[in-house]
C-alpha cells in the first residue's frame, strides 16, 4: 500500500514560509485534502491550507505543543462539509533530510484522531505529517483500525519534487542503455522516470511519437489509450504502423504497445482499447503521474483537464493545426499546452468549446440535422513533422519538470509557427470561478475521487434503459388548444 500526499508548489511555498520562519520553533497548519483511493494506493490531494497562529498551536500538556481543539473542531466541520480528509501538519525545524513523528506526536494522534474521525465523519481519512528541511513523514488513519505510513509528499509545480521521510538509497547504476541521458539528469532522474506511470491519450500522429519517446526515455509504465484502428491514410504519421497493420485494421493501441516494447522490453505498456469518456478509463488515467493528451476532441480535453485538476496531475495537450480558408493555407502551427494544477487549465484558456462538446455528443443523425447550413465535413490536413515537433517539445517539457531542470516559463502555452520557425508563448489566463481549477466551493480542484468527472456512465454496469414514458409526447392534445377550432 503506497500513501502519498500531493500539493501544488504555491501551496507548499506558503506552508513552508509559515512553518519555517527562522525562529527554530515548531509551527503548524491544517491541510484539507481530496482523496483518490485505489486498492493498493491512497493519494491525498491538498485543496486547502489553513495556517494556524500561535493561539491555535499552544504549549502542550502532553508534549511540546498541541493543536487547539477550536481549530480541529472548526476545520473538522469544514472537512466534513466538503468531503475532504483532514491532515495536521507541523515542522521539526532541526530536521533536514530525515524526519519522523515523535513519540509525543504519535501519542497525540492516538488521543485525538478517533474523535477527529468522528468529526470529519465522511469516510475520509485523517492524518498527521511532519516536515523537515527537505523531508516529510507522517501517518494516515484510513479509519480507526487502519493506519498507514506516509511514503512521500509530491510537490507539483514547474518542477516536480518529492519529499520522503529519509534519503532514498542511492543507486548510481543506470546501465549503458541510459548512460548518455543520465549524464544530463543523473541516475536519480533515471530512477524517477522508471518509477513513473504516464498516460498517453490518443495514439495517432502525435501520441505514437510521444509513446515512443517515453519508451526510449525509460519510463516505467505507459498507459496507452485509443479505441481507433489503423487505416491506410494513417500510415504517413503513426510511428510503428506498417501497411500490414492498415490491411488488418490493427488497433492503434496495439501498434504503440508493440513499438514501445520493441524499444525496451522492460517497459510496462498497459493498453486500453477504449475511450477517455468512459468512467473506467478515466479512473485509470487518474492513477498516473503525468498525462499526455494527444487527441483532437473537446470531450477528451474536458475530461483530461478535469482529471489533471481534480487529481493534481501535470498534463500536456498537443496538437497541430493547418488553417486553409477557401483552400489557401493561412497558417500552419503546432500547439503545446501544459495544464498543470492551478496553471494552464484548458477551460480557462478557452480551449474547451461547449459547441464542440455538444456536437461530439450528438449522434450522426443529430449532427446531420443540426448541420442545416449543409456545411461539408472537413478532413483536417496533417503532417508527421508537425506531430514530431509537438511530441518532442511536450515530452521534453515533462522531462525538464520531473528532473528539476525546468526554468520559469515551463507552464506557458506555446505555439510554433511552422512557416517562420518562431515560437509564441501565450499569457496564462485564470478564472477564479472555473469549475475545474478555480477557488470556489463548486470547483473540482484537488477533490480526487469525490470530483465527479464529466464522463459517460459506465454502461457495462448500467444497462441502457429504453425511454418508455417519454417515447411519445405527453398529453399534447390535452395541453394545447387547436387555434383553428376556436
Amino acid at each position, binding site marked *: 500500500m503506497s500513501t502519498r500526499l500531493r500539493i501544488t508548489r504555491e501551496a507548499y511555498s506558503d506552508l513552508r514560509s509559515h512553518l519555517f520562519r527562522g525562529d527554530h520553533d515548531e509551527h503548524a497548519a491544517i491541510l484539507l485534502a481530496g482523496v483518490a483511493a485505489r486498492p493498493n494506493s491512497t493519494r491525498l490531494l491538498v485543496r486547502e491550507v489553513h495556517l494556524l497562529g500561535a493561539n491555535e498551536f499552544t504549549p502542550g500538556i502532553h508534549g511540546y505543543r498541541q493543536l487547539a481543539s477550536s481549530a480541529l473542531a472548526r476545520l473538522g466541520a469544514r472537512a466534513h462539509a466538503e468531503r475532504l480528509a483532514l491532515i495536521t501538519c507541523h515542522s521539526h525545524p532541526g530536521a533536514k533530510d530525515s524526519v519522523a513523528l515523535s513519540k509525543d506526536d504519535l501519542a497525540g494522534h492516538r488521543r485525538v484522531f478517533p474523535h477527529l474521525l468522528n468529526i470529519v465523519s465522511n469516510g475520509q481519512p485523517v492524518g498527521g505529517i511532519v516536515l523537515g528541511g527537505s523531508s516529510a513523514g507522517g501517518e494516515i488513519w484510513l479509519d480507526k483500525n487502519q493506519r498507514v505510513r506516509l511514503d512521500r509528499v509530491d510537490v507539483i509545480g514547474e518542477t516536480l519534487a518529492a519529499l520522503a521521510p529519509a534519503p532514498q538509497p542511492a543507486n548510481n547504476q543506470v546501465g549503458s542503455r541510459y548512460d548518455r541521458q543520465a549524464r544530463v539528469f543523473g541516475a536519480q532522474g533515471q530512477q524517477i522516470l522508471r518509477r513513473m506511470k504516464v498516460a498517453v491519450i490518443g495514439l495517432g500522429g502525435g501520441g505514437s511519437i510521444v509513446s515512443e519517446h517515453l519508451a526510449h526515455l525509460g519510463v516505467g509504465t505507459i498507459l496507452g489509450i485509443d479505441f481507433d484502428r489503423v487505416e491506410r491514410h494513417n500510415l504517413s504519421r503513426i510511428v510503428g504502423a506498417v501497411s500490414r497493420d492498415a490491411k488488418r485494421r490493427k488497433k492503434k493501441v496495439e501498434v504503440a504497445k508493440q513499438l514501445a516494447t520493441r524499444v525496451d522490453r522492460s517497459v510496462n505498456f498497459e493498453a486500453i482499447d477504449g475511450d477517455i469518456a468512459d468512467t473506467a478509463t478515466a479512473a485509470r488515467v487518474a492513477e498516473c503521474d503525468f498525462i499526455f493528451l494527444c487527441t483532437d476532441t473537446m470531450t477528451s480535453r*474536458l475530461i483530461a483537464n478535469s482529471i489533471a485538476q481534480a487529481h493534481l496531475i501535470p498534463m500536456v495537450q498537443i496538437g497541430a493545426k493547418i488553417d486553409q480558408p477557401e483552400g489557401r493555407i493561412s497558417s500552419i502551427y503546432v500547439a503545446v499546452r501544459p495544464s498543470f494544477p492551478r496553471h494552464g487549465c484548458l477551460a480557462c484558456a478557452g480551449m474547451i468549446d461547449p459547441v464542440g462538446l455538444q456536437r461530439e455528443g450528438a449522434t450522426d443523425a443529430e449532427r446531420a440535422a443540426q448541420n*442545416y447550413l449543409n456545411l461539408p465535413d472537413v478532413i483536417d490536413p496533417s503532417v508527421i513533422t508537425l506531430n514530431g515537433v509537438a511530441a518532442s517539445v511536450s515530452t521534453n517539457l515533462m522531462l525538464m519538470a520531473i528532473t528539476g531542470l525546468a526554468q520559469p516559463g515551463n507552464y506557458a502555452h506555446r505555439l510554433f509557427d511552422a512557416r517562420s520557425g518562431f515560437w509564441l508563448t501565450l499569457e496564462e489566463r485564470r478564472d477564479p470561478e472555473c469549475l475545474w481549477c478555480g477557488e470556489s466551493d463548486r470547483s473540482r480542484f484537488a477533490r480526487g475521487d469525490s470530483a465527479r468527472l464529466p464522463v459517460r456512465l459506465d454502461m457495462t454496469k448500467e444497462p441502457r434503459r429504453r425511454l418508455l*414514458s417519454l417515447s411519445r409526447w405527453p398529453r399534447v392534445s390535452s395541453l394545447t388548444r387547436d387555434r383553428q377550432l376556436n
Partner: protein
Amino acid sequence: MDAINPEVADALAEVEDHFGRRVLHEADGQGGAVVTIEALDLPGSWARSKAPVRFVVPYNFPATPPYPYYLPQEVQPPTPWHQALQPIEWRGESMIQVSLRNNNWDPARDRILGCILQVADWLRAQ
C-alpha cells in the same frame, strides 16, 4: 433519479423549481436526461397556443448546455418558417428542431434555466 449524473440532477431540480409539475424527465442512458417541459406559450400565428418543448441535458452538463430543442410537429409555425426551425426525425418521431444555441455559454456562471427561458421568450416572440 438513478443513472443521472449529479450535475444533471441539479439542473433538473432548477428547472422543476421554475416550471413545477410541467417538467417530465428520464435518464438518457449516458448520465444525462431527456427533459420535456409541457405547455410553453406560443404566439397566435402558430397552429397551437401551447406546446411541450423537449431537450437533452447532456451527461457532461454544465460543460455544454442543452441544444437543440424539439417541438411536436403539429404545432405548425407560420410559413415561411424561421431559419432556426427545421422539420426532422428525432428518435423515431417527426419533430420540429429549434436551433437556438448559447454560443457564449460559461459553465461557471450560466444556468440551465437561462437557456430555457431564452427559448421560451424566443418562441413567444415569433
